[in-house]
């Protein structure tokens, strides 16, 4: 395996690794900072691909299997790229009681994929969350980082249709 440079740019020339190194240095390359470092890595790169996990493992001097084990234990970490848009449906109790299942079915039917998947054109990722904490506004979804409150199956599908419309308008 190639040696991992500590301070200069990544061999690939990707300077985002410099940014990651800053977090690693802040935690003195301690193995117990693994989760903090994975947070930073995902924030910088969007998702955790194998190269990145390898880089983190070497930098923190951790076994590869442990890094992979941690990255797959926590649902917040993504090992695959997400779609251009994400629709995070809250499946917390309050949302469930107020009809989140109906929204789930309508959205899955509309996108022809299940929650946890991304459409083949990489446009829309459907994600389910365990309570985003906006129970007063149930049922809610986090639509591209904005909370959409008091949704209905129709209004949820309409949100996704908007994305799909804008995609069609943009010339390839």
């Amino acid at each position, binding site marked *: 395996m190639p040696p991992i440079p500590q301070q200069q740019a990544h061999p690939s020339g990707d300077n985002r690794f410099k940014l990651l190194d800053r977090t690693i240095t802040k935690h003195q390359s301690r193995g117990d900072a693994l989760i903090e470092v994975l947070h930073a890595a995902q924030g910088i790169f969007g998702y955790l691909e194998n190269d990145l996990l390898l880089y983190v493992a070497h930098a923190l001097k951790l*076994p*590869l299997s442990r890094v*992979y*084990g941690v990255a797959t*234990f926590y649902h917040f970490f993504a090992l695959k790229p997400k779609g251009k848009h994400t629709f995070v449906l809250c499946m917390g109790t309050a949302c469930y009681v107020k009809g989140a299942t109906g929204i789930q079915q309508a959205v899955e039917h509309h996108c022809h994929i299940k929650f946890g998947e991304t459409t083949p054109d990489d446009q829309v990722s459907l994600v389910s969350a365990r309570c985003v904490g906006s129970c007063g506004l149930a049922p809610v979804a986090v639509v591209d980082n904005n909370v959409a409150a008091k949704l209905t199956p129709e209004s949820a599908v309409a949100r996704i249709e908007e994305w799909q419309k804008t995609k069609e308008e943009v010339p390839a």
Partner: protein
Amino acid sequence: MAILTLTIDGEQVSGKDDESILEIARQHGIHIPTLCYIDGLAAVGSCRLCLVEIEGSPKLAPACTTKPQEGMVVRTATERLQRHRRMIVELLASEGNHQCAVCVVNNHCELQNLAYDVGLTYVRFPYLFPKKTLDASHKDFIIDRNRCVLCTRCLRVCYEVEGAHVWDVAGRGINCEIISGLNQPWGDSDTCTSCGKCVLVCPTGALIEKGEAVAEMEKKTDFLRFIVTARKKKEWINMDSDEE
């Protein structure tokens, strides 16, 4: 260290305060079923088969991680415990793809022995038939995750004794899996020393040697206490003897 007296299944026994109830019971010939526990590795209390009743405590306690107390009254085989144990094995049987007839460890399998032990003859739960992977990329060994019971002995022996930490658990819940490296083929692992300890401690046919036929492979776990004692204390004990 102190010597304590306690009662296990009505029998007055004594043990050291840094030993577990399981160790003390075994020293006195009292059998408690186990799966994740193996002499020589850290106890994790995850299979829940060795749960025992302790008088005065509303909760069941894993014998492998519970330390004795003076005057403690322990029951290891009440009807309730036996019922729970049978159901735990029943759940395990439903979880994996355990086809004894085509398994190289048939008749030498700890899961199979447990089923006899707890009197399991029928599985009432639907079989989950997981679609797990078989990896034969290693030159000497095979891992068949369909037969894995997630006892984590392999990763503990690799980490605690060999020191390589090739294995870990990935995912969570019912999707947990033993993986090597970054979920790479075992044969691609740079860190595996091919020492084979993981294969020897595996209680089922999940980790096996290549070239064995059905019911041919017998696993030996005694080596573990030998090697741990040798490494820690520089003492090379007689593996055939029950004495420490």
